[in-house]
């Protein structure tokens, strides 16, 4: 272990004194974020991000049902489609065309208008529990407003909005969830991408060291290959964490991005950094030439960034791309960060964290089977 720390210490001290590298790691992402911010302005800013795809089957057709549908359609958080039957709504759900299905049963409007509570079913596959909860909150919120209004009408008070013939609007989100803003999306998209980029670049450093006589010196020493790997892993983690902190601070306090609960963000970010450090190590072990790593950093990271939603809002992509994106560590973490910023349940956080840690484990195993060869 002493050897490992000596190696980590030397690598970090070396990096710390390398002003050019530091600038590249810490300042560059900020500059690029600013530049890309202008370029991507049209994509992210202003335009609401459709987050949850809701399919509504209205078996009721009454005033309440119609207004509820209109209300959901009016929310930037939802992309609402209507189904002709409960069956086709369920199909949309099963085929993944929708995240959440809303079944407004026959007679719901009548029940609620007479002071009862409406039985609106919000259905979703298990993995969409968070989105289901989100929709449920909106539906419940709308329902309680509606009851209040209809009670008021019954009692002879003039319903302000209903009288004006406008759809009832509830602006604030239900408690516990916040709608996603473009800045937040952009900030996490950039963070996911830059950390990924840096992890791959770091693999290039590993390849370069392995080809240098420095590595011969280590290989000639009484140090096990696993100690070398752990040292590489830890120093990469340190560097990624430093970069992550700087980016996060900038995005949070300069860009004004939302953030989830610190513990959730910490668990997610830690898992992501492990996955990236693992990825870095596996590339560093398996790739022999620095040129190939440069290619990976150039093309590979860009492709992953696009698929993972760092270039365009992932919600605009076809479903299969969105599903694919969840296999990419950067796609996965972006969604998880955003979910956390919106107020997600711990269950979802764990699912994402466990997936990322599994990626890290697979990478470490793949790196372990490959003994670094002396050229």
């Amino acid at each position, binding site marked *: 272990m*002493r050897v490992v720390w000596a190696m980590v210490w030397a690598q970090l001290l070396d990096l710390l004194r390398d002003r050019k590298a530091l600038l590249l790691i810490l300042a560059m992402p900020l500059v690029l974020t600013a530049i890309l911010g202008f370029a991507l302005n049209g994509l992210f800013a202003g335009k609401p991000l459709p987050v949850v795809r809701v399919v509504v089957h209205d078996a009721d057709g009454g005033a309440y049902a119609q207004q509820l549908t209109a209300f959901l359609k009016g929310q930037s958080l939802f992309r609402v489609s209507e189904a002709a039957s409960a069956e086709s709504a369920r199909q949309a759900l099963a085929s993944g065309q929708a995240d959440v299905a809303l079944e407004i049963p026959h007679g719901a409007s009548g029940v609620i208008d007479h002071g009862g509570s409406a039985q609106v079913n919000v259905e979703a596959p298990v993995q969409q529990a968070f989105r289901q909860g989100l929709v449920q909150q909106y539906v419940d919120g709308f329902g309680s407003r509606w009851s209040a209004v209809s009670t008021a009408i019954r009692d002879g008070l003039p319903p302000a909005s209903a009288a004006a013939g406008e759809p009832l609007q509830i602006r604030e989100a239900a408690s516990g969830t916040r709608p996603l803003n473009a800045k937040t999306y952009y900030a996490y998209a950039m963070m996911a991408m830059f950390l990924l980029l840096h992890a791959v670049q770091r693999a290039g450093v590993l390849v370069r060291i392995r080809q240098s006589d*420095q590595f011969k010196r280590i290989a000639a020493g009484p140090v096990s290959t696993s100690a070398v790997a752990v040292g590489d892993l830890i120093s990469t983690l340190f560097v990624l964490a430093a970069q992550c902190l700087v980016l996060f601070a900038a995005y949070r306090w300069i860009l004004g991005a939302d953030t989830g609960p610190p513990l959730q963000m910490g668990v997610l970010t830690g898992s992501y950094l492990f996955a990236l450090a693992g990825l870095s190590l596996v590339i560093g072990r398996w790739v022999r030439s620095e040129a190939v790593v440069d290619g990976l950093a150039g093309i590979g990271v860009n492709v992953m960034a696009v698929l993972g939603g760092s270039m365009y809002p992932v919600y605009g992509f076809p479903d299969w791309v969105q599903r694919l994106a969840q296999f990419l560590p950067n796609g996965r973490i972006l969604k998880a960060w955003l979910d956390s910023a919106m107020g997600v349940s711990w269950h979802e956080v764990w699912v994402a964290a466990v997936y990322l840690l599994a990626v890290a484990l697979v990478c470490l195993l793949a790196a372990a089977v490959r003994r670094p*060869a*002396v050229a």
Partner: protein
Amino acid sequence: MLEVRDLRKTYGSHVAVDGVSFTVSPGDAFGLLGPNGAGKSTTIAMVSGLIQPDSGEVLLQGHSLRAHPRFVKQRLGLVPQHIALHERLTAEENLRYWGQVYGVHGARLRDNVEWCLRVAGLTDHRKQRVERFSGGMKRRLNIAVGLIHRPEVLIMDEPTVGIDAQSRNHILDTVRELNRDGMTVIYTSHYMQEVEYLCNRLAILDHGRMIAYGALDDVRLLAGGLSTVRMDLDGDPAPALDALQQALPAERVEAGEGRISFHVRDPGPAVGKAVLALSQYGIAPLRIDIERPNLEAAFLQLTGRRLRDGGDA
């Protein structure tokens, strides 16, 4: 005692090292001499445990490298051919770091760092970052780092390739000093002068094979003990050729434009006879070079090729 037994290494169908065996006793300065591509680096890499041999064995004090890698590696010190240092760390930090990698800690590490700085002549530059060092200083530190754990055997792979004459001399002197102080050294080079200067025993490699092995003087004699005499003349030697051949019956005299050369066992009398023979034809020597028996001649004798194609050696 370091024992290398029948090492063999092939890359694809190419045999890089083909049955190399030698023994290095404590206090030896052992040379591995051979032209580029002879298999010196590959041999060194197998001896220091960087690569696995296809067959053969390396034993240090009877412990095999394969079975007891830690025991052996802890007692070997490798100086890689290229600078293997952290550029942005100071000389002292580098020594401390590599010391820890080799398992040296505490007071012993402090002592060894001081000693290494002294050996490298860098005590006054200990707090300076390596990136600000001159090429020669880096070389010296590169060697010193190989000594940080006080190895029993110091292994150096062509440490003087591509550096200026002054640094080269410093390195040669440093290695000689270390060896005189009792350090066992394995030194590879394609410069026969370096090996002649430093080593008491050597092996000559060519195409992965060992073509000569033994004490320096013994290997030299493989050249047949012939010295080479070259004379630059103030006239054309052609008319005097018969007389020269008669004066030096055992040797074949080669004549060129304004110069002659021949190989003899005992150059003193032969040169006298040649000068006398030439003077009868009114030719006087402008310059006489006598090359004593050396490893270059031995290599020539053994392979029919020169060790290096020209150059500055």
